[in-house]
């Protein structure tokens, strides 16, 4: 195993650092999942031990599924996240393509303007957004959340994607033009597949804050109909009594969909057929 680039002590050192980090990062998650399977006494008696036959209890999960409409909250969260993600990726990629491919007056200014959102948090505009939603009658609708999250995700998406699109060979696009492909076909068939890894990166960065957000659901869509999972979990956070079993169970369940989405996108990160187009 001793080659020019690898030595045993180095490998051990690197693995030790990475394992330590993994343990630190995973600890809270493991704690949440572990305790969600325990009875209330078990959670408070020994929070750091895994569930034993004595403390094992599914009360949290039965509460979650019994009380409130959690399946519905999940659905809402999923609809909002997936729809926002779709629009962020579609419009972000289109804007990035225009900025990187076409020379037009005000190109740089437009790029700067679109990137401005990275520096200014969208929450600063909450009051104005709320007024806007009230005026358009979109309060308490998933559309309101989708619109806001799309706006929130676009700046970073455009910023990252336009950098990647600049790297796509202009010869390839020109070959498409000579073969009579329309600009839309060039964008969807030639350019998008080549920037797929960066699209996946953007998707992951966009998805997680949307899924976890509590602010906008609380302000724009707090009705029973439109509650998201994070908002729904608040149900168990009472002013005097907090139902920890239910909260931990709800949080454990909330990890699953985002995990599945992440797995889907991370598989896209593998650069498959992209090589061999040029050079």
């Amino acid at each position: 195993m001793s080659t020019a680039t690898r030595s045993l002590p180095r490998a051990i050192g690197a693995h030790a650092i990475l394992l330590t980090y993994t343990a630190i990062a995973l600890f809270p998650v493991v704690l949440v999942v572990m305790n969600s399977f325990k009875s209330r006494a078990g959670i408070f008696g020994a929070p750091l031990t895994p569930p034993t036959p004595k403390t094992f209890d599914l009360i949290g999960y039965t509460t979650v599924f019994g009380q409130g409409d959690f399946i519905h909250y999940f659905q809402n969260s999923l609809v909002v996240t997936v729809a926002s993600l779709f629009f962020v990726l579609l419009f972000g990629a289109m804007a990035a393509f225009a900025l990187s491919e076409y020379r037009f007056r005000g190109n740089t200014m437009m790029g700067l303007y679109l990137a401005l959102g990275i520096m200014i948090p969208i929450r600063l505009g909450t009051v104005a957004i709320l007024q806007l939603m009230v005026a358009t009658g979109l309060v308490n609708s998933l559309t309101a959340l989708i619109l806001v999250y799309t706006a929130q995700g676009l700046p970073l998406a455009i910023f990252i994607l336009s950098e990647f699109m600049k790297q796509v060979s202009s010869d390839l696009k020109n070959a498409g033009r000579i073969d009579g492909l329309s600009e839309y076909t060039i964008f969807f068939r030639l350019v998008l597949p080549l920037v797929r890894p960066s699209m996946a990166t953007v998707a992951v960065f966009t998805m997680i804050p949307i899924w976890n957000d509590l602010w906008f659901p609380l302000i724009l869509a707090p009705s029973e109909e439109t509650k998201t999972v994070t908002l729904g979990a608040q149900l168990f956070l009472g002013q005097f009594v907090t139902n920890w079993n239910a909260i931990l169970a709800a949080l454990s369940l909330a990890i699953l969909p985002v995990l599945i989405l992440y797995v889907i996108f991370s598989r896209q990160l593998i650069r498959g057929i992209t090589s061999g187009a040029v050079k």
Partner: protein
Amino acid sequence: MGSLKIENVKKAFGPIEVLKGIDLEVTDGEFVVFVGPSGCGKSTLLRVIAGLEDSTSGRVLIDGTDVSVTPPAKRGIAMVFQTYALYPHLTVKNNMALGLKQAGTPAAEIERRIKIASAMLSLEPYLERRPAELSGGQRQRVAIGRAVVREPKLFLFDEPLSNLDAALRVNTRLEIAQLHRRLKATMIYVTHDQVEAMTLADKIVVLNSGRIEQIGSPMELYNSPANEFVAGFIGSPKMNFIDGARLGETAKTIGVRPEHVTVDATSGAWKGTVVHAEHLGADTNLYLDCEKAGLITVRIFGVYNAEPGATLYATPDAAKTYRFGADGKVLR
């Protein structure tokens, strides 16, 4: 079926003028090479002909029709790119077929053309492969095949050999030359390599900073360059330029090609010391630091033994010496 006329084409990117008024005529079946140093505008000119770049002013006519506002796909051209630019998600066959499908060619006709083109370029075994599974030379042949199946009026090549290694470059060069003979099509080829230009062209167009310096057959350019730039650009090793005043001449600059200088150990026009010798087998390049003429290159055919530091006498062939005026133009 494939003539091209360019009338006073100018192209500017913002304040930077890349093409400063190009006039050119290409007749049917000609192989024309645009050659020049990087940044001279040769690729831009090709892209204007292809329609990938709009000219700022001037007209481009293909077969007598003004195509200045025609989109690339409708101009009856095909282009081969330096980076091959194959569609990564399509097989070799579909790469070749895509343009025809877009144009609405019947499937049987597409099949027939691909068959001919793949036989011509020996691509038959690879038709079902994707570009990623091919070597560089094969990819460039696919790119050429994609151009051939379109049966264009005009073939455009944008430095197609630059990404290939030396041996493959010579092979592919030969293939392109044979292709031109077989198809008898009009071809326009851009390169910065004057060897490619000399070996392939019927007509060479030498460009420099957005202007045409000279148009002519390879031998015309070699034997009677119009100016100092063309004289220096065509021929390898480069022509020697000697300050006229140092030699007591009236001309601003005297030019003589390395192969038109002879050396002798005992007597000659210019006395000099050998700085470096390159032994290539078939010929030998000597770099001489001459008292009168400065550093010059001498090309001797066959083997010539000369050690650095040795004293030699160089004599230029008076009949093959060029005289250039202050404006760089040849004096006659």
